[in-house]
């Protein structure tokens, strides 16, 4: 009996030690960048242990980030305009993803058509191609059609989310009884009206999830945005801006490191919140739609 108690205590002590060590490791980089953003650190070399101890909060880095003109050719404060560009791109991607995904999901769920399985399989396999693997082909093609701009980026972002979301929408629409639309159609609505008024409303969680995933996907992209609009700093997005602020383009020409830190915190924390919301919605969507694990 005593032996079992000792075994249990040892097991719990080891468990807590592992958990605490990994927890510190998990938080460390995030804590480090938050503390750096509240400091006067000008470069990596001046970050010290003292930076990580909160004694007084200095907000100068945030002020410079929001008001600063780091690139002289841009006539307005740089960072806010880059964020605005990102929001525009992400919102357009979200709307387009929702429309495509809901239409396709409705068709997959409700309609009887020949070769449906082949069509679905084909579309699904296509999603295995990651955006970066198709970046080069897309760039070459879009260069030919003068689409190396925001419109091209929105077009390039949309299919990734839309295809994945189409299957989520299909599963969700499967769980809505067809009686609702049939009743509405007997009352004189066309099939498309019934789709807009009834399916969209009843599948609202999937609509929201699709919009959120489309928004995050476009907002977080660097690879395509840099490939398409990299040379034009007036058109940069928030992620290209952060890459520039981090000093990776040109360390000598980048502004102070605490400004990058402020940008990382200001972008990182809200996006982290959105991600956690999308995760919660995803778990709910999956557990509601038994089947896929």
């Amino acid at each position, binding site marked *: 009996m005593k032996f079992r108690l000792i075994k*249990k205590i040892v097991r719990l002590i080891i468990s*807590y030690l*592992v*958990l605490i060590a*990994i*927890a510190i490791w*998990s*938080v*460390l*980089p*995030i804590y480090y*960048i938050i503390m750096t953003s509240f400091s006067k650190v000008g470069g990596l*070399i001046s*970050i010290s*242990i003292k930076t990580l101890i909160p004694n007084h909060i200095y907000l100068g880095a945030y002020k410079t980030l929001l008001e600063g003109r780091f690139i002289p050719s841009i006539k307005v404060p740089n960072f806010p305009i880059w964020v605005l560009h990102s929001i525009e791109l992400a919102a357009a991607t979200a709307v387009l993803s929702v*429309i*495509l995904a809901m*239409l*396709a999901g409705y*068709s997959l769920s*409700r*309609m*009887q*058509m*020949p070769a*449906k*399985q082949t*069509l679905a*399989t084909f579309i*699904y*396999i*296509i999603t*295995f*191609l*990651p955006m970066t*693997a*198709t*970046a*080069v*082909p*897309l*760039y*070459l*093609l879009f260069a030919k059609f003068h689409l190396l701009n925001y419109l091209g980026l929105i077009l*390039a972002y*949309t*299919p990734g989310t839309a295809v994945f979301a189409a299957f989520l929408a299909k599963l969700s629409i499967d769980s809505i009884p067809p009686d609702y639309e049939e009743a509405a159609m007997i009352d004189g609505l066309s099939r498309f009206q019934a789709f807009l008024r009834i399916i969209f409303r009843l599948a609202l969680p999937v609509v929201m999830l699709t919009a959120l995933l489309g928004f995050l996907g476009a907002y*977080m992209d*660097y*690879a395509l945005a840099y*490939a398409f609009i990299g040379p034009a700093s007036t058109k940069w997005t928030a*992620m290209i801006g*952060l890459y520039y602020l*981090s*000093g990776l383009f040109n360390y000598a020409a980048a502004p102070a490191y605490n400004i*990058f830190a402020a940008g990382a915190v200001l*972008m990182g924390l809200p996006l*982290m919140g959105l991600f956690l919301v999308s995760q919660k919605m995803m778990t709910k969507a999956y557990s509601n739609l038994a089947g*896929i*694990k």
Partner: protein
Amino acid sequence: MVSWNTKQKIIGFLYILPLFIVVLLLFLYPLIYSVYISFTNMAAIHFLHFKYIGLFNYEMMIKDKYLATLLINTVIWTLGSLIPMIALGLSLAIILNQKDLYGKSIFYAILILPWAFPGFISLLVWQGMWVDPYGFMNRYLLPFLHLPHVNSLISVSSAWTELIVTNLWLSFPYYMTVFYSGLQSIPQELYEIADVDGAGPLQKFATITFPSLRKIIAFVFITSFVFTWNNFYPIYILTGGGPGIATETFTVYAYQQAFSQYNYAFAAALSIVSTIITVGLGIIVLKFTGVLENIT
């Protein structure tokens, strides 16, 4: 007179048509176009007046050992990332799943932060932390733990260490989450019966935990394999494929060839090879996971 049934079929196609067109135009057509480009000498100097040069790009890929190097690197990157991630994720899930452990929800909330914080931004932060000698890791943490310096600019093994440790930080919470929810679905009675039979913890793991999780582990391994194979940002930001091309993978190298070296034709050839491999892996995923039965 078109029958009602035919009309329904046509309407069904109309609803899926927009997505289908987008997929064709934005995935398939660019791919076919770049097969064509890969047989030419298109680059910055021949951007408009490029000509057909046959299999030259592919021959160069094989002859100059690019193909072999990239394949080996990509396998090291994929397996080197996946094995520690699955091991750490599973260990943490098992630790968190102990009945008599207090504060698991607090630990869980902290441990998923690296996954929740935007990966691209985390990588930029980590990049600064790894700088040798004055980045945080090399100046404070590694000396504190009595570990040697890591300098990815000059040492290949350092570069892999940096990549794999950072990727582990970014991804272990995902594996922990998946395995944790898998563990919670194992009936507690199984363990109680094993306790009555006098089974030890290792025996319980081998006879109850592992067999119950085998399907989830297989699913996670195969889907993550494809994801990690093509994962772009960690290598692009942390080592840029260096030193030399020692940590370049297909995706990163193709991107750099196109957008830093302007070797479009060679980049297209690399993308084609990478795409063929990805689709091959994708078909294996479909076969293994039976995900198609659920979506059609």
